[in-house]
């Protein structure tokens, strides 16, 4: 159960909520039939035009929660209870066809390692225009023009050159921008970033974070930012959801969580991060 019901309830009643997960529980069934709980009454909401951080250690259920939003869990996953409301619609009740319409056009996800998330045999241009052609009735030429625009939006220096490049020709930071461009091409309403800066150089990391913040400030992009790095959270996010062992430990605004964490686990996380000074 959420350890912080007052705040969750307060956010849920607001009209500005884009995504609301309530009492979401489930787990995986092994081949021998043993059931393991991985999510236990997960509840939090993401307000429109904010960057919400989903923080927790490895195995805390962050990614499973994110994949649940997109309905992309392995068949061994079984849901016990809960709902995931996106703009008032329960995503868990949609059929495959309806979910596919949501994926890639309304909700998009960016992975940690961009170079493995991009298809090695196609150029960046082909991959980005493919996505827009999948969701919109546009000609090849229009799709390619849109792709150049979106590459420009994520500040790739020479978008036309990048269009012709293959993923292995790009640096880690450039590949992450290209992946971000692929996510943004259909102008989604929710962007899920799964550890998007882990594994990048610190300077590149800062560039990408700046880009994400700018997308939020300038275009009102609602973002769910999955990370284990509280340093990043302090710099970029508006709200924070702390998870441990498949449960939400604490939710609140960024300032509140960093400066006066109420939950013991949150205090531990902050103490362990390089922003120790902030909490004291």
């Amino acid at each position, binding site marked *: 159960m959420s350890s912080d019901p007052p705040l969750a309830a307060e956010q849920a009643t607001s009209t500005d909520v884009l995504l609301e997960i309530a009492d979401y529980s489930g787990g995986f069934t092994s081949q021998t039939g043993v059931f393991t709980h991985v999510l236990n009454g997960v509840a939090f909401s993401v307000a429109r035009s904010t960057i919400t951080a989903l923080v927790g250690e490895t195995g805390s259920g962050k990614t499973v929660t994110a994949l649940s939003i*997109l309905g*992309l869990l392995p068949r061994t996953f079984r849901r016990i209870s809960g709902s995931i409301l996106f703009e008032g619609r329960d995503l868990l009740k949609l059929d*495959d066809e309806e979910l*596919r*319409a*949501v*994926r*890639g*056009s309304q909700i*998009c*996800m960016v*992975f940690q*390692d961009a170079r*493995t*998330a*991009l*298809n*090695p*045999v*196609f150029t960046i241009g082909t991959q980005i225009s*493919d*996505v827009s052609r*999948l*969701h919109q009735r546009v000609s090849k030429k229009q799709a390619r023009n849109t792709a150049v625009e979106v590459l420009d939006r994520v500040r790739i220096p020479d978008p036309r050159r990048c269009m012709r490049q293959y993923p292995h020709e790009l640096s880690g930071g450039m590949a992450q921008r290209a*992946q971000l461009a*692929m996510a943004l091409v259909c102008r989604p309403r929710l962007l899920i970033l799964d550890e998007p800066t882990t594994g990048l150089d610190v300077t590149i990391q800062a560039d990408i974070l700046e880009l994400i913040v700018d997308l939020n400030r300038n275009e009102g992009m609602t973002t769910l930012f999955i990370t284990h790095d509280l340093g990043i959270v302090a710099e970029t996010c508006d709200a924070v959801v702390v998870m441990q062992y498949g449960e939400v430990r604490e939710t609140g605004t960024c300032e509140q969580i960093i400066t006066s964490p109420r939950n013991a686990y949150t205090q531990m996380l902050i103490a362990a991060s390089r922003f120790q000074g902030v909490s004291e």
Partner: protein
Amino acid sequence: MLPRSLTFFLALAVICMLGIAAILSAFWTPHPPTALETGPPFASPTWAHPFGTDAVGADIFSRTLSATHVDVGITIAVVGLALLVGTIWGSIIGFYGGWADAVSLRLLQVLQSFPALLLAMLVIFALGNGIRNVILVVAVIPLPDYVRLSRAEIRSKKTWQFAEAARLTGRRPIGVLFRHLVPNSMRPLVANASINASWVAATVGALGFVGLGIEPGSVEWGSMVAGGQAAVGSGGWWISFFPGLGIFFLSAAFHLLGDALTDADISRRS
């Protein structure tokens, strides 16, 4: 992307030359390939008849050239068919698994338990001669290799992140398979197809040699080699030699090409 070895380019050059000869021979040969008495019978190679003539005075050069489009054509058709069917079949069972996968594997094992050439000879003997039958039968025999290879490729790649990322962009599973996974698995399949083409060229020749395969009277390397057998004993080596050389070059070139492609694929992976 492509291998840069000398073998690769030599093999490719030989295949291109055979291809050009095949196209050319469909329109033009010095003498009509089935014409008799174009010169003296049993003439050894001369400028007028560069490959000599046979017992009835037919021009061996024209016949060998004319057979190129039959042999090269059959080889390409067989490999194309096996590659197409094998890739689709293997990709689907590798991606979806389940009972179709299990049944397919048993079926392929049964097919593989027959000796290849014997099976081909029996089936053609039963179905009757004809280019279509040869293509079908010779394509079915190596099919298990293609199916297994593409199945393995898809199985090893379907959990890669770009496949998941592709699903996240709203693609249906079948779209992820054919748009994203299959293009990523083509490299070893093409290498296999090239090595397989070498076997196909030799097998088509072998079937022609024993009188199975294409219709009697049409010109094909294997049957030409068989036709010249009797003359070899009395010194008329050229009647069998030149069509045999054709089979050799076609088969060897594809094998070396396939070797070079496989080497390139292995070095790329390691």
